[in-house]
């Protein structure tokens, strides 16, 4: 029971009091990773180094000198963060076998706090996608596919069908990290968020997904997708835990010139009881085409929740929301074309055997190393950056981006504290259905609710809210003011308390026993 979910109050306390040791904790997580291997959440499991880290942590606890709340806590990191000595692949052939010589700043910070790095999680190749289905290591499966809640609600279409073909996606691109947290194999995970890549899978997997303000957390060591929008994302099982992780990561990094210089003070989240001074904005444009009636109803219910508790709930308008997809498409592909130019096979990563000339080597390497999603974006991006197109596409998109950002400035300037929106258009779809449309179409559809926050650099968080009719998680999103993470998380925490999202009842079949692993799930419930 102590290991239910919380870092802040439960696991940390348990470690401190010696109810459980870091090594035990680490071993259990490693064991669970093995038995949930079919989820394909992890690309690399760093068993040896994790156990070593756990040992070191244990020594510190025995001396009564833990480094902090995170000491001994098993975590996972999305495989687009550099980890020294541990393979970093970005789920791409281009970086298969690439062992980085340095740690990303956020990874280093977690390790410095004593966290135990279990492994690198799966993603869409180079974080391009909204399903975590387009990486070279295969798709990630949503743990809720194997939950009692989902199984009870699913009606098998025929006898031959079993859960193998019915499993649903995690969303993306940080699907591996979301699945890892959701299936209890770690207590917190790092993702990245460029257009919703942390919040989207968080919603589908029923976990908390935080996108911090751009410039708050260092991107040094995060392999970039869109430098002007990327942020490291935090995935945890409750809002308090997200605040703890945020506290250990935020702050100026001299290695990242886009981080702000101001001193960051880690905060403890107050237990908000009185929301009467709060003004919640409901942006009408987020009632987007394709929004499921279920989610619409849940969103409405949430608004009422605030209203009934005494908060001011107002409808607001962010008129340029509908342009964000195309705007994002231009700016994202342009930066991708630029960022991917370094992958030429010369210094690191995959190098083709083609050696007739340097140019032919480049071409073959990049064709072999990148999947068609990446190549497609590079081609688009280069097109938009051509001299004759630059003004009409790139500059135009930057102007539109400014308009989108200004929408938020106006709304927050009019007295609204927090915006409440859906995170996704629907609950997680089955993989077989998801792949019927291509990556670009899917991304365009799914990102609509999350993208604008990246355009404007604002903090946003997904809070698991309820289960859909199919027994799958649905989350709602809160968007806050720049650098007002404390307020954002305080409100999120209040909301989390109100909705009491159910715990996943994970049923993991162990092939050698052929029976349900009740013991494991009971341990965590």
């Amino acid at each position, binding site marked *: 029971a102590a290991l239910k979910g919380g870092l802040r109050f439960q696991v940390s306390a348990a470690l401190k009091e010696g109810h459980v040791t870091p090594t035990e904790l680490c071993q259990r997580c490693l064991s669970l990773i093995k038995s949930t291997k079919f989820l394909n959440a992890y690309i690399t499991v760093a068993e040896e180094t994790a156990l070593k880290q756990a040992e070191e942590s244990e020594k510190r606890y025995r001396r009564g000198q833990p480094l902090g709340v995170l000491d001994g806590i098993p975590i996972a990191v999305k495989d687009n963060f550099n980890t020294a000595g541990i393979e970093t692949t970005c789920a791409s052939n281009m970086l298969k076998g690439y062992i980085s010589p340095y740690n990303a700043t956020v990874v280093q910070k977690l390790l410095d706090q004593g966290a135990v790095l279990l492994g690198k999680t799966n993603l869409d190749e180079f974080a391009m996608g909204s399903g975590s289905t387009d990486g070279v290591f295969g798709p990630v499966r949503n743990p809720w596919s194997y939950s009692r809640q989902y199984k009870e609600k699913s009606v098998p279409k025929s006898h031959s069908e079993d859960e193998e073909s019915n499993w649903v996606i995690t969303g993306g691109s940080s699907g591996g990290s979301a699945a890892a947290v959701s299936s209890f194999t770690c207590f917190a995970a790092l993702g990245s968020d460029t257009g919703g890549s942390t919040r989207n899978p968080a919603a589908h997997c029923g976990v908390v997904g935080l996108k911090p303000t751009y410039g708050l957390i260092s991107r040094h060591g995060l392999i970039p997708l869109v430098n002007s929008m990327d942020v490291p994302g935090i995935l945890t099982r409750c809002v308090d835990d997200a605040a703890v992780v945020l506290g250990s990561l935020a702050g100026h990094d001299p290695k990242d010139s886009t981080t702000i210089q101001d001193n960051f003070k880690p905060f403890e989240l107050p237990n908000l009881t009185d929301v009467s001074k709060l003004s919640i904005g409901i942006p009408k444009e987020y009632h987007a085409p394709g929004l499921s009636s279920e989610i619409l109803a849940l969103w409405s219910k949430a608004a009422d929740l605030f209203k009934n508790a005494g908060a001011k709930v107002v409808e607001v308008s962010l008129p340029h929301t509908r342009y964000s997809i195309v705007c994002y498409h231009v700016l994202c592909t342009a930066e991708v074309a*630029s960022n991917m130019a370094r992958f030429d096979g010369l210094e*690191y990563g995959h190098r083709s055997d083609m050696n007739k000339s340097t*140019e032919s080597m480049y071409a073959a390497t990049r064709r072999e190393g990148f999947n068609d999603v990446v190549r497609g974006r590079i081609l688009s991006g280069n097109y938009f950056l051509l001299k004759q197109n630059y003004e009409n596409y790139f500059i135009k998109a930057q102007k539109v981006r400014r308009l989108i950002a200004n929408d938020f400035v106006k709304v927050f300037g009019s007295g609204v504290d927090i915006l409440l929106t859906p995170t996704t258009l629907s609950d997680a779809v089955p993989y077989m259905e998801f792949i019927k449309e291509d990556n670009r179409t899917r991304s365009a559809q799914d990102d609509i609710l999350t993208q604008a926050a990246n355009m404007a650099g604002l903090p946003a968080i997904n809070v698991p809210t309820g289960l859909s009719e199919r027994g799958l998680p649905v989350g709602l999103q809160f968007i806050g003011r720049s650098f007002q993470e404390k307020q954002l998380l305080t409100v999120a925490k209040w909301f989390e308390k109100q909705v009491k999202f159910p715990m996943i009842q994970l049923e993991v079949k162990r092939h050698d026993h052929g029976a349900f692993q009740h013991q494991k799930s009971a341990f965590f419930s």
Partner: protein
Amino acid sequence: WVPVVGLEIHAQISSNSKLFSGSQVQFAAAPNSLVSFFDASLPGTLPVLNRRCVEAAVMTGLALNCSINKRSLFDRKHYFYADLPAGYQITQQRVPIAVNGSLSYSICIDNKMSQMVTKTVRIKQIQLEQDSGKSLHDDTRNQTLVDLNRAGVGLMEVVMEPDMCCGEEAAAAVRELQLILQTLGSSQAVMAEGQLRVDANISVHHPGEHYGVRTEVKNINSLRFLAKAVDYEIQRQIEELENGGTILNETRAFDSKLGCTVPMRDKEGKQDYRFMPEPNLPPLILYDAKSLPANMNHQQVVNVDWIHERLPDLPSVKRAKLVERYGILPEHGFTLLNEDGLTEFFENVVKQTQMKPKKVIGWILNDLLSYLKQHSLTVKESPVSSFLLADLLNLLEKKEISSTAAKQVLAELWKGEGKTPFEIVKEKKLELIQDQKELEQICQAVIDGQENEVMAIKAGNQKVLNKLIGLVQRETQGRSNPALVKQLLEKKLSE
């Protein structure tokens, strides 16, 4: 025909570390030993701007009378090449750090140092950008070897408007820029070490008509070759057009062996560099005394006024001061500054001798400098130190030796055998005869022996007197003071 020449000069910034990373800047280090993760373009690395490089660019901008842009931006310039690991160069294309300056330089008319003319070339802009690595093509093994030591070193690109008209002007302008950079210390600007690279843009047109199609000439690594390349290209274009041909807007390389420009078959077609703002670097903001925020961390701020106050004397100012202080001619000042270390040498000699600077300069420029040039030595390598030369000039000034004798002594000193001027004079018996009686005797002897000449002089032909003086000199083996000899002879002849 009106030739039009513009220049793009890349000067390597003299700094300890590179423009955006902490790896060292050093010439001729072991290959790939000065490469940081960022320089190698490892994924996830980010640029961090080097403050010293910014200061160097500001100093240079101020010295070239530019407006310093208090807000400038960084951009990515994309192309694929083995020595460009990231696939793009970080440069300043939209808003560079300095614009609209000027550079004054001097050239001699008809190669006469005494006729110097001052010219001005406009500086379009100065931008900060990354240098690339080096690639060496090994054709026998069909390989390209890449050394990234130079990748990421800071460069200042100085763009000179097409205000020049020939090789001489181009070389003189670059020389002056070189001196300025070296005086500021912002670049060591040694062309032979690749710290200063020049690309020339050349075209020709008829007076009154539009500018012609221009070619770009690259691969010029000395001032001499610059002048040659520019002049050759101008000639080539004129000949081509006069024969009814056309000039292609192409890039050519200078072949120093053949002394001509040849087309570079390197890049096919025109490149679209797909410029894009560098998203990892915020705008570069510079401050001055007025705009400096009160509580800002001194380390994080570059104050243009502070730099301005601390600029050293530029070459043009130094020359003017030398002329004023020592009474030498402007062209003397020019030559003094043109040779590394010569000004210092000159001033040291002046300090240690009673001889007037106006006279000392002759010895420095005519004698010492020609020796150095003959033996291809720099001033620092001179076997004759300023101390020795001053010593020698003192002997001359005290009239202990004649100037002819002094030249002989200098030749001996040049051998660098460690003898002092005094020792050499004694050894070779070069002292001037001080005994007037002895001199009178010799003069008398000469007069007695040259009846015809004496008659000619008495008849009014004064020029013949020089012959007699010469004979006395020969008799005395150069040890007589010509002025004194002349006096004595005249006296005797008038008796």
